[in-house]
């Protein structure tokens, strides 16, 4: 829990359970969980990078999937990972944000896609919780 996410088991794939006091923090932790699954090897010396993204979706569940899909695209095509997000706009159907992170040398695992399979976003004892399954 310290990290804000847990990597759970699934017979064929990988599930990430993320937590957050706010939806923004939930999205950030889900992204960090996804990044850990990819087993990135950071470029040394470290080189910083920044990206901007905008996502619009039909509801909060779709927003999380679309957001992670967009980040995954940026991670894989630019060979970089992000450890911080600055949200400029965040509603249940739309977000705009700035990502910052580091360049990556290689990945140990490939994620094919972010799925809706058993996707859940819940609020428990004031904490948001989401479970997302990745096709790997």
């Amino acid at each position, binding site marked *: 829990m310290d990290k804000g996410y847990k990597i759970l*088991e699934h*017979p*064929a794939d990988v599930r990430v359970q993320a937590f957050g006091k706010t939806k923004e923090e939930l999205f950030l932790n889900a992204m960090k969980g996804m990044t850990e699954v990819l087993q990135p*090897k950071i470029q040394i010396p470290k080189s910083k990078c920044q990206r901007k993204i905008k996502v619009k979706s039909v509801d909060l569940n779709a927003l999380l999937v679309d957001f992670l899909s967009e980040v995954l*695209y940026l991670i894989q*095509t630019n060979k970089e990972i992000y450890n911080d997000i600055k949200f400029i706009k965040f509603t249940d159907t739309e977000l705009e944000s700035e990502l910052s992170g580091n360049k990556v040398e290689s990945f*140990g695992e490939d994620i094919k896609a972010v799925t*809706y*399979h058993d996707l859940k976003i819940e609020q428990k004892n004031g904490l948001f919780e989401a479970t997302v399954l990745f096709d790997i």
Partner: protein
Amino acid sequence: MINKSDFKKINDYLWEYPRRSGMKVPARIYASEKMLGEVFKDRSVEQLINTASLPGIINYSMAMPDIHEGYGFPIGGVAAMDSEKGVISPGGVGYDINCGMKLLKSELSEKEIFPHLDKLASKIQQEVPSGLGRGRQIKLNIDALDKILKGGAKELVEQGYGEKEDIENCESNGFIEQADPEVVSSHAKNRGRDQVGTLGSGNHFLEIQKVEQIFDEETAKKFGLFKNQVVVMIHTGSRGLGHQIATDYIQVMMRAMPKYNINLPDRELACVPFKSPEGQRYFTAMSAGANFAWANRQMIAHYIRRVWTEILGERSQLKVLYDVAHNIAKIEKHLVSNKKAEVIVHRKGATRAFPGQPVLIPGSMGTASYILVGTEKGKESWYSTCHGAGRMMSRHAAIRALSGQEIINQLKAKGILVKCYSMRGIAEEAPQAYKNIDEVVEVVHQAGLSQKVARFVPLAVIKGE
């Protein structure tokens, strides 16, 4: 909870779940009684029943014996839809569009290859990048990529990366003509630009194998197979490009479904009428993804052939036995109520098996693989058969059960060489994590969907990351 008693026995290898509320057709599973007992461990049966609710589905939603939980459709699922009134669903194809198999045959026996095996395996591993950052990287410009999306393996052969026979021995001759690069997003293209000729990770692999057993001498001869012959098996798909097409179009369909009054129990089943603009765009984009996968396997074959002749000399050639998809949707003509009709066949973790066609079935790492041949009886499953062993154990559980080194040692004891950069990659793909391939193949053989021709065992396993 659904259980075995809800299924009606049709014969020893076929079981039916009758049509209930919400289902348009009954659901059928090809399995032995023992295997049927095991399918309730995950949610694949529920997924098969959900599939039976899709508009325009014909006859049955079907599952092969290697059924396991997927997204939307179960893996091992087959469904044909009426092309006029039915839907098309990315969940019936999977994220890895045209994941599939290619088999290259040598004229050499195990004995002849043995002194060169280590060198061949090492060099192949070097020459075929995983695409995850290690090894050679070639980035195509968008024009060159569009040509591949349009022309698939055929385009690469025309560019000199193979022989005419390669595309003759390939499902759909290596390309679907309806493919349209225009409806493939720039995201998908960017993910694919440096991935032509890359293996990927997970269960994708290359294996140098030998023919261990022949079941059908006549067909084996026709296929050019003989005992102890060395062959090379390629298992990969459309990489990030195909994954992105699936992601893009699930989003498109989810937004479009209310317009067509489609309500589904699972978002991963997102679908639209095949004849709708969104349906047509997905089909032509998916076809482009499929073409990319055929080109990918063709390019990998090209790299392997280069290594082969470099080490064994110009006279040692690798010929293609066949290349076939196991994640795809195709427009095909089949008999429906005794009339030829155009249908959309979704095969998700299922292999096309037209009568006389070679069918390539990989086992899990280090176990056997099979060559089958399609049969007339296969028409009951739209000429489809199984695709592999089917996973049973999570990757974490596999890692806990045995370390990568222990598995390498076990394989070594069986005389199998392993080339993999990642111990974790090896541990995740432990043979124990999969169903028994012999049992899976026995079911489709006994059910008559395809017949056993030969069984292969690996000499060397080469994996990406």
